[in-house]
Every structure is written in C-alpha cells, then in structure tokens.
C-alpha cells in the first residue's frame, strides 16, 4: 500500500509547553488508522499539528509524497486533508445548510448534498436553523458531513463518537466503512475502543507525546492485556 501520510520525528509546542516529542507514524492510501491513548497524551495535538493548525512544530511531514511543513494552513485542505475537530466547530451565525456548504470543494469525488442528507436525515430536518442550535449529536453529524462534500483524500477525525447516541454511533460507523470502501483514507482518534476496533485496520498507541506501539487489527486479541493496563479498557 502506498504511503499517503508520513510523519517522522514530529515535535509540537503550545507556547512553551512541549507536547509532541517525536511522533512517528504513517498512514497508507485507503487505510483506516486509529490513535488510542489516555486523556491528555497529545492525540488531538497530533491531528492539529498534521493539519497545520499548531504551527510551532518541527520534524518531517509529507502527504502524498509532498512536504507539508511549509504549506500555509489554508492550503492544507487543497492538498487533500480534511479535519473534523474535537469541539466540532459548528458556526452559530450560519444555518445548517450554510455550515454544510461552507468548506470549499477541493477535488471532485465528494458526496453530493442529497447523499449527505440521506445519510443524516436529522440534518435535513433542521437545515434552516442556526448551526449551534443543533443538539450535540446533530452538531457532530454536521461536522463530519461538512467535510464529506469537499472531496478530500484523507479525513482526520477527532473523537467523532463523543456524546453520540448508540444508534448514531452505529450509523457513523457504517458511514466510515462506506467511505473506506470508496477508498477514503481515515485517521481517527478515539476513546470508544469498541467503535474503533470495528473500523480500523491498524492502531497506534500513544503516550506522553509519542507513539509507543503499533499493531494491526488482527493482533488486537493478544494486545488486550497491555491495552487494559494503559487505557483501562
């Protein structure tokens, strides 16, 4: 499998606090990879650094063979990276449809609005109300839906199931599987281990700003003990 995202020795800082201490990871084209780890180990920071939101960073970062370290933030999306933040980032002054239509389409092959509404009927019902008047779960759906339109090659999802009803979690799981079938590459940060284990091909375990281990989904059973210790699963 061709490597799509390649991260080597990535360091990142918030002000003076050093959060990432040399993250190494790669994600292959069409692969779904999940980062696991306790609260505060730097999972979110890893995604934000890859996107370029965290700019005080060092190390090597290539996407589709091209260096990303010097790419300005507003160009990352055009290179094919779509980001769904942990706090969702729904805009309150925009309606649901406006939120949905906001991110510019960067490549062909994204979902159409009809497809999206089919996938998330709640959104269709509430399409004219203000973004943040949605419930927490509806906002999460909107945040994912928004990116699906743009045709990016790779999705970075930060805890997409947080605060969602089990039905919705299942639905999102299905959606992610569908996307995967279409060849979408996904990098997922997840606390919901059960959810992650159903869709991921590979796992990274993160601790103290580094990837401490890496294993494919098949090794999951023999790893359960370690995971139990580290994550309390």
């Amino acid at each position: 499998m061709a490597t799509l995202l390649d991260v080597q020795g990535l360091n990142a800082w918030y002000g003076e606090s050093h959060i990432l201490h040399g993250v190494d990871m790669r994600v292959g084209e069409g692969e779904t990879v999940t980062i696991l780890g306790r609260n505060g180990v730097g999972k979110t920071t890893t995604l934000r650094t890859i996107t370029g939101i965290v700019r005080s960073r060092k190390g090597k970062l290539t996407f589709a063979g091209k260096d990303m370290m010097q790419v300005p933030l507003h160009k990352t999306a055009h290179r094919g990276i779509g980001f769904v933040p942990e706090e969702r980032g729904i805009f309150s002054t925009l309606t649901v449809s406006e939120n949905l239509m906001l991110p510019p389409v960067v490549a062909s092959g994204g979902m159409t609005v009809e497809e999206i509404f089919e996938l998330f009927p709640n959104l269709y019902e509430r399409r004219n109300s203000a973004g943040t008047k949605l419930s927490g779960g509806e906002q999460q759906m909107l945040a994912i839906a928004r990116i699906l339109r743009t045709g990016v090659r790779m999705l970075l999802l930060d805890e997409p199931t947080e605060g969602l009803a089990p039905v919705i979690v299942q639905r999102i799981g299905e959606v992610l599987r569908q996307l995967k079938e279409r060849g979408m590459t996904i990098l997922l940060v997840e606390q919901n281990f059960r959810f992650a284990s159903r869709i991921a091909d590979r796992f990274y375990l993160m601790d103290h700003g580094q990837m401490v281990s890496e294993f494919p989904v098949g090794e999951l059973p023999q790893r359960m003990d370690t995971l139990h210790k580290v994550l309390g699963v």
Partner: protein
Amino acid sequence: MTMIFGIPLQAFMGQLLIGLINGSFYALLSLGLAIIFGLLRVINFAHGAQYMLGAFAAYLLLAYAGIGYWPSLILAPVIVGFAGAVIERLFLRRLYDLDPLYGLLFTFGLALTVEGTFRYLYGSSGQPYAQPAALAGAVNLGFMFLPIYRGWVVVVSLVVCLGTWLLIEKTKLGAYLRAATENATLVQAFGVNVPVLLTLTYALGAGLAAFAGVLAAPIYQVSPLMGSSMIIVVFAVVVVGGMGSIMGAIITGYVLGIAEGLTKVFYPEASNIVIFVIMAIVLLIRPAGLFGRDA
C-alpha cells in the same frame, strides 16, 4: 392647514425628509462599523477618522490635483480603503487573538493620531468644498425647498447600503466571513485564505466610511473634527441596531436619523441625547439590540 402635533403638516414632512437625509449618513457609517465589528470583532474607533479622511481626500484631490467630486467619489474610498488594508495587515491582525478591547484601544489611538495630524496640518476650522455643479440648486417639493444634493445623498446611500448588505448576507463570501469571525483557524483549515478576506473586509469598512465622508464634504465643513463628533452617535446606532447585525445597522441608522430629526423640532434641547435615551430603553427591553442575535 393640516397640523400634526401642533406643527403644520408641510413643515412636518420637511423635517421628516431631513431626518432621512441625516439617517443616510448614520446608516452608511454604522454599516461600515457593523461590518468591521461583525466580521473582525474589532470596534473600529477609527471609523470617524476614516470618514474624515474620505472628506479630506476629496478636498486634497481637488486642491492639489484638480480632481473633482465625481472621480473622488470612487477614488477617495479606494485610497482610504487601501490605507485601511495596510493598517490591518501591519497592526490590527496581531490583535485578533486577544480580547477585543485591544482592537478598540488600538483604533482609538489610531483615531487620535490621524485626527491630530490633520489638525496640525490643516487647522481646526475646516476647509471649503463646493457642491458638484450637476447637483447644485434645489427643487421645490411644495412642502419644502429640497437641495438636489441632499436628495442625491439619500438615493446613493440607499443603493450602497443595500448593495453591501447583499454582498455580505447573500453570497458565499458572507458565509466565509461570518464563519471566520467565530473560528478563523478552522475556516482556514477548510481551505479559505482568511487573512486576505479579513484585510479586504477592513478595507471595505474603511472605504464605506470614506464614501460617507466624500458625500458629506459639500454639506459639512471638511474639518479634522468632523469624525469625532459623529462617531459616538454612530456607535450608539450600532448598539441599538444590534452589534454585528448589518441590516440592523442600516435600518436603525435611518430610523434614528428620523427620530433625531423630529426631536430637533419638538424638543431640540434633547436632540443630542435622544439617541442615547433610545439606546437605554432598547437595551432594557432587548439587551441584544433591535436586530441583534442573542449573545
């Protein structure tokens, strides 16, 4: 003769019209202010200075380059807008991440400096600027003698206000801007070049102020002080309209212009505070302003 509240209908109509004319200035100025506030979260204290700069640009273009009113109507806003863009690029940009009050304080300093400079160079008693020949004279409306130039002000300001509103509320550009207000980083991560958008927005706001300044030049003295006497009232208009609401700013501008005009007839002593009184009442009943969204 028909009477309304003890004054002749004709005089009443005249005053109504005059209120509308003043409202045009309020609307144009508060529109620019609302755009800058709504989209950049900057309380642009320099708005009055930019209005004054517009008028001065027209005066200077005429005095030193012989460029008349009509070209100035375009040129002056462009010049001031450009200056605004430079200010935004060099300075304001660094303040977005901070509490909005720093933006307010910076533009306050900017206003002091700009006005001080013009006072130093051109004195405080103002410069003459004549009406364009094409709009000189007046028409008799029956109930009043309306200078043609004033009529022009009403028409052109309505057109500009509506055009700007359409641009911001009804285009994708507007959605980008509003979203960027809330979370610029995210919008940028979506692939929108937010910094350039913000620069253009500030330039647009400043340009609108300058446009109002050019419109004002033939009516009011072109004086370094013309902005500072206007700015606080315009702030109140924006607060009443609901900060950040663009349509709110426009409508409130016209309405308060008329309210002020009528106060000048019925109780002139109160005409300078009527807007503040209205503001206090509105805030008691609707804290977010007439058209403001709940904070």
